[in-house]
């Protein structure tokens, strides 16, 4: 957190000074560790064992917040008799099909019965206990290399800092997500936090530290293949009708208003052309048939199926896993559009990619037509970023962008106008959506910049009279309202750009509700009804946040209550109720169909209802907990799956773990930092961090050079020998060395270096298709890497030793196709 979110870390420093205990779990001793009370070095890839052992510590010690757990979670739900846990079948849950690597979840669905005593052997609480019973301090030592004493200390701190009077917060970043088991890491933390009563309460929660200015916004209003704005799923081929599609979403809780959300979106997009009769043009939306994510798409490019590619401030030639494949893919396109502030590697791959040096690509043989279009910076356009706390903040335009530079809003809008002009006379069915699109935003200035506030107003939504809506509660399912993103409705409440509010922090409460605007409904903390007990009284006076005011018959507090304002704590839903009315006055988790925190997740997860330890796709260690070694559902594309599976048992060839990360001084793939002298000089060269023991083992010298070889690539880096990295002793005394590699460098900019992401495979989490870039295996040798074709020979010599085919056969198919 201190490394990549230094300004947010001020609050941690302040909390520490007020008596909070700060624990940092990380394979490396970082700038965050330096200021924590305790650093716990851990083997990367072992997080579910560590977190699961904490769950077990809580449950076996009776440390759970029982009243909270009983009232607010699904602990009492009874599972069907045919449910089989991973404990019963050595790492697999019931319903697994090894051929398709998928689960049928029908045996996971709770029966509908509940046992509030939490003693029924098939109730979630008891299943949870059994599931994690073997996750103990000794297992943590064996798998993660954390001593039993350190684990027990950590567990004690956690339990002492939770309960009625205290809360614990967990903070994570991509150290948890970039794994084949990424979603399950967060799930384990969620289980822990629900058991300890740390959700929906001040000082509690699980905070994602997102790494980019509006990465939250990029999922809320997604440029992601599987989502529509507001977390509505993209339709799949089987969603033939609007009604059919809506059955995929819950009927109860706030998803119960799904029709209003979707219809309002379609009305915002297609205006008068969207009618009840034509199902608001829903049938014409494009349909998904599986994974269309960025990694799958890159493989499609290599196979020749993609003609054109747009990059908007993104540099996959450096920043995406398997960067080598990314660049080979760019070379297979018909055309490529790159929009950025400066010329980046993804725009110049045809000139200076490493594959030109190795002879795998030749400039004059690359047929990709490349357009580089300069982009406006954040001060040259108005618009909103959504920060990591779901808060939208408007940034005002300060001046015009230079030369041909334009905002991405300008580019999207004017490209749309030109495309629409080209199909204006078309009567083809496929052009109907394009022609129906509402695409007429006010323009201003010589450059005809579209009005970003008008776009935000469309996102906020309006009623039949064109008046801006005050919130998503006003959305109607009958086509009379328009709203581009239901969760953002209210950002323009009262006709005022709420996101531009800047009331000084010194002039408002600590919750600061009048700075910017947080979705939904300007709530700063989600599920905050859980900060009060079932009767609506704060669990603790110290930790009061929202509560039921009996006199006024409403919820009130420091924040906007995340609950229907006048729903009494004693409200019991009538039979057959739908929507929010189906939730009781004691159900705080209002986006869940049952209103309760999910200790057990029976639907929506592809790799099991409970977190389970699997080794990473590449690991020098065999799973110590189950026979099922790696995630049974992880997505390993054929070319790489072969690699990963064959790698098992080849720890001798690739004996070390490497992990990739960012440094304070740089930003991601370097497009916004390697062009800046102020930042470049602070971290001028790629380096690898190794322990003194590994340095001795491999003859590495501080300040010298090392070559790091994985099954996919070999790169060189300067060496930092540091005691901040230490070998970890696992089961039976096995020692694991971990190599740290920041990944900011490429061939462009003021400071250059090899591309670390070249080393990584395409191994994805099945739920969200995020790549496993936090852990893979390598060898390290002293000295610089070979130049030219000899580089490939080096990689191949290792592949040969591991029994893998040569690299050129591995990528050979990349040279076929178009």
């Amino acid at each position, binding site marked *: 957190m201190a490394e990549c979110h230094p300004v947010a870390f001020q609050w941690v420093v302040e909390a520490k000074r007020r008596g909070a205990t700060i624990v940092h779990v990380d394979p490396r001793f970082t700038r965050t560790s330096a200021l924590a009370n305790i650093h716990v070095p851990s083997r990367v890839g072992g997080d579910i064992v560590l977190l699961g052992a904490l769950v077990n510590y809580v449950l076996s010690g009776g440390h759970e917040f029982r009243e909270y757990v009983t009232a607010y979670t699904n602990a009492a739900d009874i599972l069907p008799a045919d449910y089989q846990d991973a404990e019963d079948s050595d790492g697999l849950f019931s319903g697994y099909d090894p051929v398709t690597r998928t689960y049928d979840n029908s045996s996971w669905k709770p029966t509908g019965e509940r046992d509030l005593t939490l003693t029924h052997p098939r109730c979630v609480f008891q299943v949870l206990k059994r599931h994690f019973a073997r996750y103990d301090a000794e297992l943590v030592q064996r798998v993660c290399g954390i001593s039993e004493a350190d684990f027990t200390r950590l567990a004690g701190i956690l339990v002492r800092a939770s309960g009625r009077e205290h809360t614990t917060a967990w903070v994570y970043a991509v150290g948890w997500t970039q794994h084949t088991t990424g979603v399950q890491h967060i799930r384990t933390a969620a289980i822990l936090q629900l058991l300890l009563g740390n959700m929906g309460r001040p000082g509690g929660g699980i905070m994602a530290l997102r790494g980019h200015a509006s990465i939250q916004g990029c999922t809320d209003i997604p440029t992601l293949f599987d989502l529509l704005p507001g977390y509505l799923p993209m339709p799949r081929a089987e969603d033939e009708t609007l009604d059919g599609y809506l059955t995929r979403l819950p009927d109860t809780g706030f998803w119960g208003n799904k029709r209003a959300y979707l219809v309002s979106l379609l009305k915002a997009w297609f205006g008068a052309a969207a009618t009840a009769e034509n199902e608001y043009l829903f049938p014409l939306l494009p349909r998904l048939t599986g994974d269309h994510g960025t990694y799958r798409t890159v493989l499609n490019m290599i196979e020749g199926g993609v003609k054109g590619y747009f990059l908007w401030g993104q540099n996959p030639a450096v920043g995406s896993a398997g960067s080598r494949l990314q660049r080979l893919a760019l070379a297979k396109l018909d055309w490529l559009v790159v929009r950025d502030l400066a010329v980046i590697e993804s725009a110049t791959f045809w000139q200076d990619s490493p594959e030109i040096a190795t002879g795998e690509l030749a400039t004059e043989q690359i047929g990709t037509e490349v357009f580089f279009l300069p982009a406006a910076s954040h001060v040259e356009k108005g618009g909103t970023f959504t920060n990591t706390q779901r808060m939208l903040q408007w940034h005002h335009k300060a001046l015009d962008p230079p030369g041909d530079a334009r905002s991405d809003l300008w580019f999207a809008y004017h490209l749309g106008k030109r495309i629409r002009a080209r199909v204006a006379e078309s009567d083809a069915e496929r052009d109907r959506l394009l022609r129906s699109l509402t695409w007429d935003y006010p323009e201003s200035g010589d450059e005809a910049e579209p009005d970003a506030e008008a776009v935000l107003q469309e996102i906020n939504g309006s009623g039949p009279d064109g008046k801006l809506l005050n919130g998503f509660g006003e959305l109607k399912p009958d086509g009379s309202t328009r709203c581009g993103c239901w969760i953002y409705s209210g950002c323009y409440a009262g006709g005022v750009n709420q996101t531009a509010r800047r009331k000084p922090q010194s002039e408002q409460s600590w919750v600061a509700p009048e700075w910017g605007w947080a979705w939904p409904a300007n709530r700063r903390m989600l599920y905050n009804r859980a900060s009060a007990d079932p009767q609506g009284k704060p669990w603790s006076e110290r930790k009061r946040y929202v509560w039921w005011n009996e006199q006024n018959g409403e919820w009130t507090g420091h924040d906007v209550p995340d609950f229907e304002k006048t729903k009494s704590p004693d409200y019991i839903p009538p039979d057959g109720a739908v929507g929010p009315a189906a939730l009781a006055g004691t159900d705080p988790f209002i986006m869940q169909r049952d209103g309760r925190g999910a200790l057990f997740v029976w639907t929506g997860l592809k790799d099991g209802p409970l977190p389970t330890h699997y080794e990473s796709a590449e690991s020098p260690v065999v799973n110590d907990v189950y026979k099922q070694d790696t995630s049974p559902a992880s997505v390993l594309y054929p070319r790489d799956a072969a690699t990963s599976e064959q790698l098992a048992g080849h720890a001798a060839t690739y004996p070390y773990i490497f992990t990739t990360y960012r440094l304070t001084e740089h930003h991601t793939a370097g497009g916004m930092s390697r062009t800046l002298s*102020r930042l470049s000089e602070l971290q001028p060269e790629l380096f690898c961090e190794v322990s003194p023991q590994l340095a001795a083992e491999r003859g590495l010298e501080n300040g010298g050079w090392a070559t790091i070889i994985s099954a996919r690539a070999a790169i060189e880096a300067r060496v930092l020998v540091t005691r901040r990295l230490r070998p970890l002793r696992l089961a039976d005394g096995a020692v694991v060395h971990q190599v740290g590699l920041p990944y900011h460098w490429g061939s462009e900019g003021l400071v250059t270096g090899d591309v670390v992401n070249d080393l990584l495979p395409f191994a994805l989490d099945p739920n969200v298709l995020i790549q496993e870039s936090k852990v893979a295996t390598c060898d390290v040798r002293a000295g610089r890497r070979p130049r030219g074709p000899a580089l490939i020979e080096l990689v191949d010599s290792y592949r040969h030793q591991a029994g893998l085919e040569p690299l050129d056969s591995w990528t050979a198919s990349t040279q076929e196709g178009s």
Partner: protein
Amino acid sequence: MAALLARAACCLDEDVEPTRIAKWPALRQLTGRDRLGRGAAVRSPHTEAASPRTASAERVVASICPYCAVGCGQKVYVSAVNGKDTVTQIEGDPDSPVSRGRLCPKGAASKQLVTTPARQAKVLYRRPFGRAWEPLSLDAAMDMIADRVVAARAQTWQDERDGTAVRRTTGIASLGGATLDNEENYLMKKLWTALGAIQIENQARI
């Protein structure tokens, strides 16, 4: 002491106008309170003129840091330099409840992000199999890109797949960074969906 007393005399300007004699550091040193010539007596015009450039900014614009997702408040100071609007300083906004005026090294470097000569301000074009960048007008580039989108879409359009309607193209892909504004993402998603392009992705996946 002699050295200290003499020091101010060293900076006497030979061509000083008589009316400015009273400002001679040596005179000030000998007649004022700063007898050692280490303070008030030896202040230079540069020192006397010192004031923060932000004080004379033509406008101060509220912004948000474009790097990580903490969302630190920024104040952007703009002045005309050689008749051209120029960002002269970006620093933290003390009013922000998120950041209280503070910035990390990246945030503190954001003026350079905006003003660096490394920024490419003109469209560049590389023709197929070309060996060098070529200039191209923005207008021509926009038309060429629009033509290519329309053509690629037509060539790769799928009305159905395995007998089920899909109404899409997999011939066009997009990958956005996460420094895009919400409004930008919104227009992109809206346009792509209307175009039937589904391989629309973002750093948020990564």
